[in-house]
């Protein structure tokens, strides 16, 4: 019965308040599309800012022909001057088709396990490589994959057996060993210095000179990039604009709903006089609002998903895909919850216990 009444309300409103209802439909449609758009901008630019951050705090060299063993002597001298700013070092090598990674921190002549990578990628079984493994130069390995029960087994990397101490569920054919283990013959592919504080030009020059000194023409050292604060400020500004778009959409929708709800005082007073409890009166109006909002959200979703999204993704291309079923679902749910909460509060404010007060206010 509540739904029937709600539908009747909608029909009557369209006939009696055609102008206001048209404005409501158009405003909500624009608000829904704006919110999807704003979300896309927000996600895309947040991802771009992270990419810039990663690039700015990273110095990298790719080695075409070289061995891990060639780094051992020069690395401490190179890292000595920059250890205060350094977070960790990543060395990537390979053997046959197996990728071998080494992560470590450098602290006053000692190699330690990289806290950042241990926190971001903890072992799903067993343990990560520890400070002791690095100190002792233990031949231990952390493997990847979803085959359980490998802890304690020995894996051959080259001619050396490495004991499996941990497993991660990420990727496959991926091995992590301590830098100090027996790995001199591993083919070196990449060396990356990841900094906590912005790297200085002197750090880059030291890194480049060391790499070119060791590997000559066989190394490509990435260009040193100064952090472009202007670009980051521009992206932050666009993110704030996207948030403001969301706020404007929300305020506009509240404005129109506030007006429509204020016109319902007489109707709700009449319902109350003929016996409807406050809860029922609220429910009838809420059901009407949610039905209208849900219909508009579905139309807005279809228009955006199949008409506009492709263009937006082309213009604001980033490596991260922000639009997916899950993200649309969350946005729609959040939108409906916000509409429900806002209109519930407005309906409560308008619905007074004394029906005579409501009738008197309705005449104004």
């Amino acid at each position, binding site marked *: 019965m509540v739904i029937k009444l709600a539908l009747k309300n909608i029909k009557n409103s369209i006939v009696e308040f055609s*102008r*206001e209802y048209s*404005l409501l439909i*158009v*405003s909500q449609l*624009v608000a829904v*599309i*704006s919110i999807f*758009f704003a979300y896309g*901008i927000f996600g895309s630019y947040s991802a771009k800012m992270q990419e810039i951050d990663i690039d700015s705090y990273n110095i990298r060299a790719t080695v075409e022909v070289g061995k891990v063993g060639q780094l051992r002597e020069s690395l401490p001298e190179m890292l000595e001057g920059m250890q205060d700013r350094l977070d960790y070092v990543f060395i990537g090598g390979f053997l046959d088709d197996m990728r071998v990674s080494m992560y470590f921190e450098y602290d006053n002549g000692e190699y330690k396990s990289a806290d950042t990578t241990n926190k971001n990628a903890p072992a799903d079984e067993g343990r990560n490589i520890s400070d002791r493994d690095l100190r002792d130069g233990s031949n231990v390995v952390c493997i990847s994959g979803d085959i359980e029960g490998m802890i304690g087994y020995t894996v051959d990397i080259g001619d050396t057996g490495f004991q499996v101490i941990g497993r991660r569920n990420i990727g496959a054919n991926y091995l992590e060993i301590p830098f100090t283990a027996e790995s001199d013959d591993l083919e070196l592919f990449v060396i990356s210095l990841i900094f906590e504080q*912005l*790297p*200085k*030009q*002197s750090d880059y020059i030291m890194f480049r000179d060391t790499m070119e000194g060791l590997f000559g023409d066989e190394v490509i050292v990435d260009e040193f990039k*100064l*952090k*472009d*604060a*202007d670009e*980051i*400020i*521009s992206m*932050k*500004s*666009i993110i*704030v*604009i996207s948030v*403001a*778009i969301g*706020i*404007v*959409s929300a*305020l*506009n929708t*509240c*404005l*129109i709903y*506030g*007006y429509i709800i204020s016109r319902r005082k007489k109707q709700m007073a009449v319902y109350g006089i003929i016996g409807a409890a406050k809860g029922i009166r609220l429910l009838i109006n809420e059901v009407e609002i949610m039905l209208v909002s849900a219909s508009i959200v579905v139309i807005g979703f279809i228009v955006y998903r199949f008409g506009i999204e492709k*263009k*937006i993704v082309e*213009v*604001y291309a980033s490596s991260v895909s922000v639009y997916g079923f899950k993200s649309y679902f969350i946005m729609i749910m959040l939108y409906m919850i916000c509409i429900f909460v806002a209109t519930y509060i407005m309906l409560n404010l308008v619905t007074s216990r004394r029906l005579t007060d409501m009738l008197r206010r309705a005449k*104004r």
Partner: protein
Amino acid sequence: MFKFALSEYIRNFWFNLCTILLIIVIMVLSTIFISNIEQDTREYRLAEQYIDKDSIFVTWSFYDLKQMIEDKLGKEDKLLYSQSIAGGIEGNKDANISSLVYPQQVMEKLEPRMDETVNILDAKKNKDIIIAYISHNPYGIEAGDVFSYEILTLEGEDDGICVDVYVAGIIGEGQRLYSSVGEVFSDMVYKDFFNLYSYEQTGKVKMIIPEQELCKIKEIDRINKTSIYENIIINPSDNMSEDERIALAEAISEYEKNIRPITSEMVYPDARDIVYRSNVLHKSELYKYIPLTIIVMVLFIVCVTSIVTIKTIISSRFYGIMYMCGMHYTIAQRMTAVEMTLNSVIATVFAISILTLQNKLKLVGEINCNLDILQYGFMFAICTVIILWSTMTAKRVLKDNPPIQITKNMD
């Protein structure tokens, strides 16, 4: 009439509050939007005046070449260069501070972003003090400080020129300055003429001195003659014939060969290619603003329509009754204008306050939200549109409909 407008305003308190909030957010949004476009395009707007299809570029030179170029150019030809001065703190040989002398057009179009600024009114009155902007530095020099800057000439270490410098601001990190061109490579675009600078990452302390401040120094001629002129861009006007242009380019080339060997890394690509690639890059950067502009415009139109429509509807009954009692429709128009003007003024005051607070306190971090003539103009335009539209709608409803029809529609 004013009393009626005020009582009507208070009667519709919630509507007016919502309207004010909406206008505030629209104004803040438009200010950030315009400021961001301005900042993103400022290098291009400066570069397009100088980088043209027949521009000539020089990486660096001494005073004599710069003077020769100036002598050969006419009034309509354009010349841009970055004058570089070596120097340091007087009495401290290890405190190196290199300075860039910014011509007025660069100072206006490419005003450096400052992390800190101070008032310069008092310093401006003192004609013996130069007002300059310095980067973050290890010497403890901060905004508002005065220090003795020793300009090193090429004549000798003991022949430096000492000037008092008032630090009007601290240059922000990670921004593009008009200084040396750095690397010359084959696919240069306009951005490559403005190098990124960071004290934190390079360790080099820089100071920017506006050209008109440098003119205060008595030994300005000596300083000019011993400066290095970098990133020289010559844009001949249409008055210069092709032969004259080629002659100038050859004279420059001959000069450069005499002072240093020319390597392939110093040869600029063709100016037409630079212009073409720059235009492509600039268009691609503006392209991202098109969807934003469309969404913002559509939202603005929808919001103003909502405000005006609801305002008209809620006021029509009241105006209809007053109309029946003899009030002329123009009074209703004026009352609407007064109400919407009050909303607009309150919203503008709050919007400007929020933006000023943001600039001072960085409430949401550092973003582009400058308050200049253009931004104020847009705020004024928003207010004008809302006030005029409301007034015209009120007039249309009252003038075109008899009073009985108005009150009938309101039941």
